[in-house]
């Protein structure tokens, strides 16, 4: 899995690619924690190139969302989530915890 982070004025954009399972979820967690640990809580996760995400990956997103939304200081939003990932998130009732945008520009603009 490859992860890149770009810091913008109003938010941070994280782009990850490949498969997010128990083996790779810790890398995504580290990248997201690095941002929240620096006191930045407005995050866009570009999921265009994420092909697979297991429940280990969702928990990384849920934990980050909890951290970001605490004290209403920010939010984690998602971009371009593959249909299969989205439907599995919806099946366990987790889809409602995230705003999902079609492109990064609109997601960044939402902050």
């Amino acid at each position, binding site marked *: 899995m490859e992860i890149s982070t770009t810091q913008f004025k109003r938010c941070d954009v994280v782009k990850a690619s490949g*498969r997010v*399972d*128990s*083996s790779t979820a810790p890398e995504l967690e580290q990248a997201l924690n690095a941002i929240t640990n620096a006191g930045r809580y407005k995050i866009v996760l570009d999921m265009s190139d994420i092909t*697979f995400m*297991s*429940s*280990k990956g*969702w*928990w990384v997103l*849920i934990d980050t*969302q*909890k951290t970001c*939304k605490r004290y209403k200081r920010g939010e984690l939003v998602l971009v371009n989530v593959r*249909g*299969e990932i989205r439907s*599995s998130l919806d*099946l*366990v*009732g*987790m889809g409602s*915890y995230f705003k999902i945008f079609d492109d990064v520009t609109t997601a960044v603009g939402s902050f």
Partner: protein
Amino acid sequence: MRTATFPGDYKSLEKISEFVVQAARQAGLNEHATYQVDLAVDEACCNIIDHAYGGEGLGEMTCSVEIHPDKLTVIIKDTGRPFDPSRVPEPKLDAPLEEVKRRGAGFYLMRKIMDELHYKHSPEEGNVLVLVKKK
């Protein structure tokens, strides 16, 4: 039937995925159904590593695939602790974000996305999980 044995490590998950995805394609499952098999098998193997063995590197997972004209059957065996599927809690689907609990979501999802799920434990075979996806 094809069978492969993998170490009970997270690093095995991608190889197990390749093994079952190839079988799902050969069975003629569409992309959506193939993803669901991939996901269910990943969740099952994670549960084996995390709960049956209680960590990485403590046992093996044996995965078999059977391609039938109308369905794909995946059989996963391990020699870890047995579990009682009826005691896996159902996730609360409408819980507020702050109250979301980890336990049970993977197993709940497996049952939802597969057409059949059977589990049994015997001293001879250990834990046997059978997942069936119809075409």
